[in-house]
């Protein structure tokens, strides 16, 4: 038998080693997305990947063998918007962490949703600042003890998918790293959707979050936890608020293809302007 080559290896830059802690959810997220690209024809040069600061920023950069733009903390959506206007036929995929997206980049996020720019945002939500050593994030659960909330977190966490829907995103899906195949399916839909697509992946950080949650360096326990606590959106409709507490509502939560897309609208206005309308 010949040497086995991973079927996704062709999407990685030669000689690049992936930098994650053991058991990190980034690997599942990266593979789920790349399987989606494989299923959609496998031409990774059709894509451009923009990412910010934090562990999630290193999912595409510098590993993916495509156009990569790794920018400042929280600012990947404005950069991706400019890039998409310049290259409307390029599939622009943005990787952001929960802190990058909803803390420092929160304003850009709600406005990108509102504009309905044709971007696919993959948000790796691990509920904590991993790269900087386990500080509380806007997604950290109430009463959770982190390195900056040693007596417990007094702030309520953001529901990122709800934030996206309220801000005007036109495709919103949430899965956990337990749901790799579902992520791939939703990613394909997100890329093909003409509008702002938000794909939230609840993901394990066994080192920082695991430590604070009593599952230190135990990704299997964290994945089992996701499996047990995930509730499909259809089933969630039948639960009371009390029953939904602590659960992760998963599935394709929202889809509206009827809203005009931002770059298409800019192109339309330009045509009309050139005709003197």
């Amino acid at each position, binding site marked *: 038998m010949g040497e086995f080559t991973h079927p996704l290896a062709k999407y990685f830059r030669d000689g690049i080693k992936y930098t994650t802690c053991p058991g990190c959810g980034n690997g599942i997220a990266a593979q789920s997305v790349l399987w989606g690209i494989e299923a959609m024809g496998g031409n990774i040069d059709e894509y451009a990947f923009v990412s910010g600061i934090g562990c999630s920023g290193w999912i595409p950069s510098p590993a993916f063998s495509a*156009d990569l733009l790794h920018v*400042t903390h929280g*600012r990947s959506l404005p950069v991706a918007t400019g*890039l*998409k206007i310049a290259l409307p036929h390029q599939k622009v995929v943005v990787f952001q962490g929960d802190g990058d997206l909803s803390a420092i980049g929160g304003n850009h996020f709600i406005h990108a949703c509102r504009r309905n720019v044709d971007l696919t945002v993959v948000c790796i939500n691990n509920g904590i600042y991993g790269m900087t050593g386990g500080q509380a994030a806007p997604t950290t659960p109430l009463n959770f003890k982190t390195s900056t909330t040693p007596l417990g977190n007094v702030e309520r966490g953001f529901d990122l998918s709800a934030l996206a829907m309220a801000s005007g995103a036109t495709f919103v899906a949430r899965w956990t790293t337990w749901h790799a195949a579902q992520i791939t399916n939703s990613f394909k839909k997100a890329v093909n959707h003409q509008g702002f697509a938000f794909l939230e992946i609840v993901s394990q950080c066994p080192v920082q979050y695991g430590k604070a949650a009593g599952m230190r360096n135990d990704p299997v326990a964290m994945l089992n936890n996701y499996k047990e606590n995930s509730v499909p959106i259809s089933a969630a409709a039948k639960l009371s608020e009390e029953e939904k507490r602590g659960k992760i509502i998963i599935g394709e939560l929202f889809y509206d293809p009827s809203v005009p897309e931002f770059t298409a609208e800019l192109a339309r206005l*330009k045509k009309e302007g050139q005709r003197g309308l």
Partner: protein
Amino acid sequence: MKTADKKSVDKNNKTDFLLGNVACAEGALYAGCNFFAAYPITPASDIGEHFVKQVTEQAGFFIQTEDEIAAIGAVIGASWGGMKAMTATSGPGISLMSENIGLAVATETPCVIVNVQRGGPSTGSPSLPLQADMLQAKFGSQGDYEIIAYAPSSPQEMFDHTVLAFNSAEKYRTPVFVLSDALVGHMYEQVHFPAPSAMSIVNRKISESYKKNTSIFLEGDVAPMPVFGRGLKANITGSTHLEDGTRSVASITAMDNEVRKLHGKLYGAIDDIVIDESYNIEDADVILYAYGSMFRAAFAGMKLARSEGLKVGCYRATTVWPFPEKRLRALSARCKAIIVCENNLGQMYYPVAASVEGCVRVLRGTPRILGSLPHPGDIVLKVKEALR
């Protein structure tokens, strides 16, 4: 009808009476700018407002972003998408943009940033001119880097320097500032529009194909840019990187290499980049160093001083950054004193004083009332003080 509201101006080798900010937008279009992102701010909003009216006639886009951080971010993204991109703002906007200006420096992203300076600190005086952000342009973002900045003194130069800024941005793959102020931005004056081919237009060199280990950064003669969407597999990061884009954040030699090469790219080309003008310096005892709107006052002051028999010359810095230390040193060898005429309490004073290394007196030429151009007589008084 206000000139600012004109849908179009007669552009082909004709002269028009224009607002400085409108001339800036027209200069951008002449240079081939096809992407403009901005957030509203006094006294710079009319640049984008004029541009957006024009883009229906030319191939370009204007977007209004949620803040200035997003404006410069979108400019960076559009530039990597192959567009000639710019933003225009004033001091508060520059403060917000500062981090991403550093990103543009580090990723060698060609773009133009117009700062129509106003009174500060903080919200300050939005509609009043102050040359308040001269050092911010060079030192505003973290890290150790070089920048290019031009200081227009008239609506004509708002046009010319914007063209110049795009040409330098494209040639050197770097952000370039146009450091105007509320006085020049909101001044009406004659502007001559060059014929379409009269001014040369520079476009960036683009990589031809993707090859592993090829330099896309940190070359003294500027690496070709792997513009997105062409299968060039551009590997771009604001983290410390090697010539081929590979991130290397823990290597002291990689950091030294990047900082030195980014700086050297511009500083090594200083004679090509720096544009200046000298008036009556041959026999001058006192030389007035001036730029932007203050050059108008310094020039008038020099003429009045000459009429009184005082040997006064004027050095006009069109390019304020990178700072031409050697030229200032050469100037200091031929005079007794340099007066740094600027509409602030002394900003370019510091690099001027550092360059002459104590060989001559260096005085601050701050106007009696900040924000106003000094009367030529005030400049003569300052000259006399310098000669005492």
